[in-house]
């Protein structure tokens, strides 16, 4: 179709470009600003000369953060929670979703309702907390893993994906005498990489970003995840949280301590930013898979 460009169309395009540029700037601004503060010259940062891009260059604040052994412990903890948690999340979700996607399963409908009900009604903080404590999970690393093994919404997403696989696949396998375990492990799983990717990303970012369960269930500092540390340093500005940071090493400790807050934020979101471009195509997929049948 041939398009003629009228004055109205040109005006439309100009407004569009302006609005879109504005959206991109507003979205990226806070992240860029924090990064600029973290790597600017300490004096420039303290004098408030950093508005958008870095002024001067200094890695002292980042070095201070990176040299802190406590931070690496929290980083390691978060990696453990994310790794172990996400693996078990995906496993539990698939094990729940697969039988629900088998049309012959005589309890299928019942269990779909069983899962859906938990989406609309949650017992709330107090009973959940008491049950976890009663199970002896207080101050255990498993308190951050077991209570959130599967989310109803993701079970439904996973089931929708399995349901979209061709029926003949299951019929043929049954005719050949394959067990359900074989069908799931050898036939369905190899075809399910897209949905596994979606589940991994969603559960993974949830674990990486989670702070409330740790606040609720952990008292031992050595088990804290990174997000708790972040809260202590950046939000509560607790001097205790900075212990282990070698402030004597350089003279202008006041300057650096202020920058340390920015540097900690950067260190915490770096993995998300680095993996983001690689994974972003799956984000959209996840939302849409859920939307079709949800």
């Amino acid at each position, binding site marked *: *179709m041939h398009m003629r460009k009228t004055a*109205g169309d040109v005006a*439309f395009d100009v407004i569009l470009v302006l*609005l*879109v540029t504005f*959206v*991109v700037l*507003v*979205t990226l601004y*806070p*992240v860029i*600003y924090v990064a600029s*503060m973290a790597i600017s010259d300490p004096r420039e*940062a303290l004098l*408030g000369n950093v*508005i958008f891009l870095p002024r001067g260059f200094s890695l002292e604040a980042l070095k201070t953060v990176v040299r802190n052994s406590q931070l690496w412990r929290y980083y390691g903890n978060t990696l453990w929670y994310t790794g172990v948690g996400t693996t078990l999340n995906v496993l*539990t979700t698939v*094990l*729940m979703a*697969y039988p*629900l996607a088998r049309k*012959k*399963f005589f*309890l299928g409908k019942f*269990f779909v309702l*069983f899962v859906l009900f938990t989406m*609309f009604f*949650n*017992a*709330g*903080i*107090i*009973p959940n*907390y*008491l*049950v*976890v404590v009663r199970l002896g999970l207080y101050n255990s690393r498993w308190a951050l893993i*077991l209570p959130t*093994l*599967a989310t109803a919404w993701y079970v439904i997403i996973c089931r929708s994906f399995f349901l979209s696989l061709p029926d003949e696949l299951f019929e043929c396998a049954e005719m050949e005498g394959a067990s*359900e*375990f074989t069908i799931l492990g050898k036939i369905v799983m190899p075809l399910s990489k897209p949905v596994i990717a979606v589940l991994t990303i969603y559960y993974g970012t949830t674990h990486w*970003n989670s*702070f*409330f369960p740790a606040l*609720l269930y952990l008292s031992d500092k050595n088990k804290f995840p990174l997000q*708790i540390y*972040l*809260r202590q340093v*950046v*939000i509560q500005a607790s001097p205790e949280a900075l212990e282990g940071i070698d402030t004597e090493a350089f003279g202008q400790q006041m300057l650096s301590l202020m920058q340390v*807050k920015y540097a900690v934020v950067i260190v*915490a*979101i770096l993995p*998300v*930013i680095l993996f*983001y471009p690689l994974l972003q195509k799956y*984000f959209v997929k996840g*939302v849409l898979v859920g*939307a079709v049948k949800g």
Partner: protein
Amino acid sequence: MKMKKTKERSKAQLTPLGRLARNLKRDWQLLVLIAFPVAYFIIFKYVPMAGLNIAFRNYKVGGQLFPVRGLNDWQGFRWFKEFFESPFSWRVIRNTLILSAEQLLVTFPAPIILALLFNEIRHVRVKGFVQTVSYLPHFISVAVVVGIIYNIFSVNAGLVNEIRARMGYEAIDFLQKAQYFRPLYVGSSLWQTAGFSSIIYAAAIAGVDQSLYEAAYIDGSTRFKNVFYITLPSIAPTIITMLILAIGRLMAVGYEKVLLMYTPATYEVADIISTWVYRTGITNGKFSLAAAVDLFNSMINITLLVMANQLSKKLTDTSIF
């Protein structure tokens, strides 16, 4: 033919127990697979629901979570009454409603506008880039978002106060002043959610019949008019579905972010039902009272969801259940 008939009859004649035995024999492998996740849902989702019985009892630390050794501490609706008679009940209910309503008003239309905006970008790669950038905040943790707010709005050397100082204004401690809590909360929510929530609308727009635009073009319509007369009406069902879901979550406003953002100085506007429940139950150990208030909150949520759904069914024929 005859054989099939007898087979059917024998199927019909199977006793319930016999049918169960047949089903178990056929589906036992599926039951093995589902056993672990079902155990999870029972222990961590359904047992806590049963644990809500403490809302009607006087549960003390170390006491029985389920009244198996006799029910000797039944309180009926005592905790609900106590809450409604306390001076804080009105404050937390009002704060929850205002914060949720402001949040809904600001963050609900934004992703629709973004999706309409992105849809007009003709350059495919530019469109992809802009969308990808807009999803990013969704993946940044609440602790980091609040951390960034604290950095930017801090009273010492925060960006906003630096700029105010340059302009000759006095520094404001934004995080300790009640009147700034809601704007900061809602504003940062807008930043966090607008882009990612636009995905669902972008998908709906992608499904709009392209011939409508061609016909409009021949009729001399402009792109600006198309947005309001074609695109927007076409995605109306999606908008309504999302609105129902949003209303259902009205009172479930995220306590995580409030918990990170508020200070005792801002409690008067920032303390919402869920943060009050957290402090009363977990911090002060009044489990029964806190559970009762949480239960009340959940009930309102479900009622809101059902009402929004019914209303939408009546008005527009769109509903989620």
